[in-house]
């Protein structure tokens, strides 16, 4: 039995195909202005990798901020529940899930079945999500891909406040003027974002094991900062950006009465 999970993110549309509870393939396409088209392409990508036809998919569940825009889906699930399901699927010991995406971040506490016990979402402000890193990398005039590695060289001699993207930027600019080394500023940027996420974690309560997902999970600079601030080990899956889509696919499977073999 093949089912699909679709995650309508702000930046990317993601698809995960599951066959009898095992991941078959992934697909990801920028959301752009035509979500229908993006969904189509993401599906094509996943189908091609799996070597199957569209008609093989029995059921589709969707999640994500743009879930209303998803064409022809069989059911919907919130990003919070989807993340919890995916985390426990990947790591049965997962009890706290941290998802940092482009515009949104969330912290979820769940039980061993992946049932959500508590959660918090970042306030309506980009300073608590990936967009903050993009803006700061621009201010620092480094590529976002390089900023993580750069930050690892730092000792932690300086800090910035991340109450807001605008203030963060002016903080960075003034550090540059003070001739603070770039790698130190980079670390300060990651620390500031991690700080915001950590305060959300504490609102919900930290319970190991901690799993980090979402696009920003791939950023080694951020992962290191979060680990420092949380003072605990963090599990990061291989394809963290697909957590939402995976959770939706698992939900689709449950809805059809299936379970992991």
């Amino acid at each position, binding site marked *: 039995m093949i089912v699909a999970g679709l995650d309508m993110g702000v930046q990317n549309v993601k698809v995960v195909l599951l066959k009898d509870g095992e991941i078959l393939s992934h697909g990801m396409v920028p959301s752009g202005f035509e979500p229908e088209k993006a969904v189509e392409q993401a599906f094509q990508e996943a189908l091609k990798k799996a070597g199957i036809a569209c008609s093989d998919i029995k059921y589709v569940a969707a999640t994500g901020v743009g879930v209303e825009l998803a064409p022809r889906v069989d059911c919907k699930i919130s990003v919070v529940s989807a993340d919890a399901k995916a985390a426990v699927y990947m790591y049965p010991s997962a009890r706290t899930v941290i998802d940092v995406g482009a515009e949104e971040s969330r912290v979820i506490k769940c039980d061993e079945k992946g049932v*959500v016990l508590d*959660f918090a979402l970042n306030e309506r402000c980009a300073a608590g999500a990936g967009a903050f890193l993009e803006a700061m990398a621009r201010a620092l005039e480094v590529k976002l891909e390089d900023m993580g590695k750069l930050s690892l060289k730092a000792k932690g001699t300086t800090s910035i406040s991340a109450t807001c993207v605008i203030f963060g930027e002016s903080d960075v600019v003034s550090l540059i003027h003070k001739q603070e080394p770039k790698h130190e500023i980079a670390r300060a940027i990651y620390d500031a974002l991690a700080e915001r996420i950590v305060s959300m974690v504490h609102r919900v309560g930290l319970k190991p094991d901690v799993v980090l997902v979402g696009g920003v999970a791939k950023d080694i600079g951020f992962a290191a900062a979060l680990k420092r601030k949380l003072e605990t080990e963090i599990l990061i899956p291989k394809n963290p950006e697909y957590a939402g889509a995976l959770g939706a696919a698992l939900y689709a499977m449950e809805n059809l009465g299936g379970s992991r073999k």
Partner: protein
Amino acid sequence: MKNSSDKKYSIEISQKEAEEIRNAIKAASLKVMDEYIERMKKSWPNRPEAMQYFYDIAKFFGTREREIQEAKEEGKKVIGYTCMLAPIELILAADAIPVRVSSGFYDPVKLGNRIVPVEVCPVVRSTIGVEMIGLSPYLKLSDALITPLTCDGMTKLSEILSDSKPVWTLYPPRLKDSEQSMFFWREELRTLKAKIEKLTRTKITAKKLKAAIEIMHKATRAFRRLQEIRKDAPVIMGRDAMLVNQTSMWDDIKRWTEKTEELCNELERRIREKVWACPPDTPRVMIAGSPAIWPDNWKLPNLVEEASPQGVIVADELCSGDRFLFDPVGVDEWTMDDMFKAVAERYLLPSTCPCFTSEDGNKDRVNWLTARIEERRVDGVIYHVFRGCMLYAMEYMRIKRVLDKINVPVYYLDTDYTREDVGQIKTRVEAFLEMLKSRVEF
């Protein structure tokens, strides 16, 4: 009329501008009210006949406005109040008309922003805006305002409103349970009583006060009966119950009482016949925190009861809702002294507003919440906080710790007087309801 240069805050704008904005907002509000009522009807298609009365009164402009206007022409006075600490019995005893004037309109906030910073609680900013353009008939028709100084926002709002109307401040002691607090509060009310008597030229006699207390006893009885009905499987949608509760703030209280009793008769019959308003396994939600005020700030109730999965609001902790008429004045003997004491106690002691504190950290509020949660079998609490409302925001952790202990999920939801965050709030509310549902199922 004071000269503009004598004014403290000078909130007036040109008549032409005021009129233009007022007309625009009023027209939009009428549409919003119609739309919300239609949406409420849609999610409760088999509602009883008796609900229609409350939908009509909820129209805000119109019937009730004209009634008050006419009463004024016959010499009656209208006394507005900004917060539920204002003693309604004293107003009624002086034959005056009580109306609550704290605003639930979104658009006037932009006008309020000209006077106070955007960081201030939106109820305050909106009420200022409403006064600037004369949007609320009830605020406009008020001859004087009672303004309890509960929080910083309300304190300065009181000053700002005093530019255009006589304003009678009431200063509640932040510590409730001490002799000196009670003494102080009684003196506050005594001063207020004299002011009411002077404005209305009516002496508040023992007989009149007794009659007023009895009117409010009946209102409380009807009010409690309605909340009692919400304990079991849902026979009324939460939004509708909330609307009934809220109309008591500007309706004729005697008529409101009758109509509420009528509604309750019908609802009790439905309980016997097991005619539910929504499936009995719908997640049961409580809204705690900052008030949800009709019409515009119906955002959260709308989202909860229109979400998928759907929730039903079976209780709230709002000063604009379940708490408003909950407590009766407890009189031992019908002497003036005793009645007055009882009225004073009624407004101070049972109040669970976070503006109070005590050695046990506002335990009253905790007790009130946990009692309601138990009796209404609440599955989860949405803790609603306005941006800028420090008191509710700061007390969240206190409440969350208690709720965690009794294993009742709570979600902190901050919002403002704006329509722009509906999408984001929806995501949160739906995730929360989904969580409640899965907890119930497992």
